[in-house]
């Protein structure tokens, strides 16, 4: 079978490796640092129900609910399955509710209306002046262990996973990519690997990988800040019931409560520094939903860089679609053999991989069905 090279050891790379080996391809994956050290692992851990996208991005919402159900089945040990609430705090939030409910239902997302009293009975730390709430099947994933389930399974099925192995160049012949040059950070040795197809799954770094191949990719790094406070203040995921905005999500995890998130646009995913004012702003906004957030001790504050699809015109970064695209550079740049994954999010990693693997099947003239929807993943501990 064809040898497929995956560039980037994040969640997307993990799921692509898993899908491709199940379809019988030979797979090698290369990551410049530790696996999941770019964006995936730093994510707040929300397993989306899709409700957050239901109003402004119903396609993404439908994908989320379908993937949410699948991941709960195939990797139950990596998910705290406690559902989530969308909480209305003022009249404007209440005005948004009918549209929200209607869109959740249209997207197939179970949404159960709750009175303020009912919501407080479930989560006593909620702002006591809340107006209403909606229960949806959000959940918390372990952002390291969930994708590690994919790596464990991919490796057991024959994928070769190389961390600390940086791609420093491509070899090309007759308008096609034919190989990669790898710098091994352990031995400092440079070596070439030949392959039949190359998948750029470097996320926010995918533009840098395309630079190495002499082509451009419309990736816009979109960093965001997250704050973890000590104490598990809720058990359910808490969202503000309004249009997607800053600081409207609280994700409990282990003994922590994680507050997300801000967003801005950056040019270089490596040169992102934590803006001083974002943490205090997230605490301020989070405390509107769960007042105890303000009294809790700050545990840590960090950035993660989203791989957004670059927009032709300036746009509110919150409005940029969180959908993903697979880009065949044969069509886009007349360069055969290279495919890039653009955009995407942790909840839909499996689906992104399915679409990439479908494209690889089309390009290699093979007709092999995807098997990842029902295949239970190996436990992450099997990776070791």
């Amino acid at each position, binding site marked *: 079978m064809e040898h497929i090279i995956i560039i980037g050891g994040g969640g997307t790379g993990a799921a692509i490796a898993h899908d491709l080996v199940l379809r019988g391809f030979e797979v090698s994956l290369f990551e410049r640092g530790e696996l999941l050290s770019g964006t995936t692992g730093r994510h707040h851990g929300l397993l989306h129900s899709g409700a957050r996208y239901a109003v402004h991005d119903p396609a993404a919402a439908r994908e989320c609910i379908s993937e949410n159900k699948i991941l709960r089945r195939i990797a139950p040990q990596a998910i705290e399955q406690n559902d989530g609430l969308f909480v209305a705090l003022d009249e404007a939030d209440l005005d948004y509710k009918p549209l929200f409910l209607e869109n959740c239902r249209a997207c197939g997302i179970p949404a159960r209306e709750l009175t303020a009293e009912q919501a407080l009975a479930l989560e006593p730390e909620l702002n006591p002046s809340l107006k209403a709430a909606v229960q949806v099947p959000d959940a918390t994933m*372990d952002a390291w262990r969930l994708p590690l389930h994919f790596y464990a399974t991919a490796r057991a099925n024959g994928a070769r996973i190389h961390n600390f192995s940086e791609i420093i160049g491509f070899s090309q012949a007759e308008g096609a990519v034919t190989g990669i040059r790898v710098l091994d950070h352990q031995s400092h040795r440079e070596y070439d690997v030949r392959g039949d197809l190359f998948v750029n799954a470097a996320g926010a770094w995918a533009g840098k990988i395309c630079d190495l191949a002499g082509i451009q990719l419309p990736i816009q790094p979109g960093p965001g800040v997250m704050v973890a406070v000590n104490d598990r203040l809720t*058990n359910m995921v808490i969202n503000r019931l309004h249009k997607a905005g800053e600081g409207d999500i609280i994700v409990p995890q282990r003994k922590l409560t994680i507050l997300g998130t801000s967003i801005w646009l950056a040019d270089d995913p490596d040169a992102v520094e934590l803006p001083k004012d974002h943490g205090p702003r997230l605490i301020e906004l989070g405390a509107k939903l769960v007042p105890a957030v303000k009294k809790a001790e700050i545990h840590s504050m960090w950035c993660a860089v989203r791989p957004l699809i670059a927009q032709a015109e300036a746009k509110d970064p919150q409005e940029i679609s969180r959908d993903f695209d697979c880009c065949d550079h044969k069509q886009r740049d007349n360069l055969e053999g290279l495919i890039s994954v653009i955009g995407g999010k942790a909840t839909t990693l499996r689906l992104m991989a399915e679409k990439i693997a479908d494209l690889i099947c089309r390009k290699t003239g093979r007709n092999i069905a995807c098997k990842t929807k029902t295949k239970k993943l190996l436990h992450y501990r099997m990776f070791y």
Partner: protein
Amino acid sequence: MSIKKITFRILRYKPGLIDPPQFQNFSIEVKPDMTILDGLEKIRLEQDTTLMYRHSCHHSSCGTCACKINGTESLACTTKIKDLKSISITLAPLDGFRPIGDLVVDISPLFTNISEDWSYLKNSENVKSSQMPEGIKEFKRFENCIECGACVSACPVTHKNKGFLGPAALAALSNELKKSPPKAEDLLSMAGNKNGERLCERALNCSRVCPTGVYPARHISDLHRVLKQK
């Protein structure tokens, strides 16, 4: 914002290249709230792209970034530079694991005695809810142990006796025992075997270095008590 110059003294190791390991100094400018991990990222991006260290979540959930910071096992992601109150910070990999490169070790032996059949989820404690959401019987959460290896590195017994199950596995075993009573016989026979809790010397280093409050020594005492009663 005050910017300070700090020296990171990192034990470098590259098999066949920097072998045996030797310290290398990196001088960096740091801002007040930077963590050791932020410092490592800065060195990698500005001074040596081949500096090897593990990291993922940046908030003490994944457990990958444990190393020895000024001689003590800690997480690089939640250790703030300013809290070390030192202008020179020494970083070395965990002890007792096979070194791979720089601060990276092969952590896989940690999992030899932690079965994948032992649940990583438990019931959430201190639940103040007067009702449960429809469709949810009990709130669940991940275990505190992030499987970082700090306790194993700090344990004097694991270095003398390679067979010792070690503090991480014994703590995980003790948690599983509480969650799955039907497995008690097997679990206790493992805990009570010649490589089990009896080898613990009560140094308590494991509980001192654990970054997430698992207190493995307490679990080992619990197992000791249960086994004695048998």
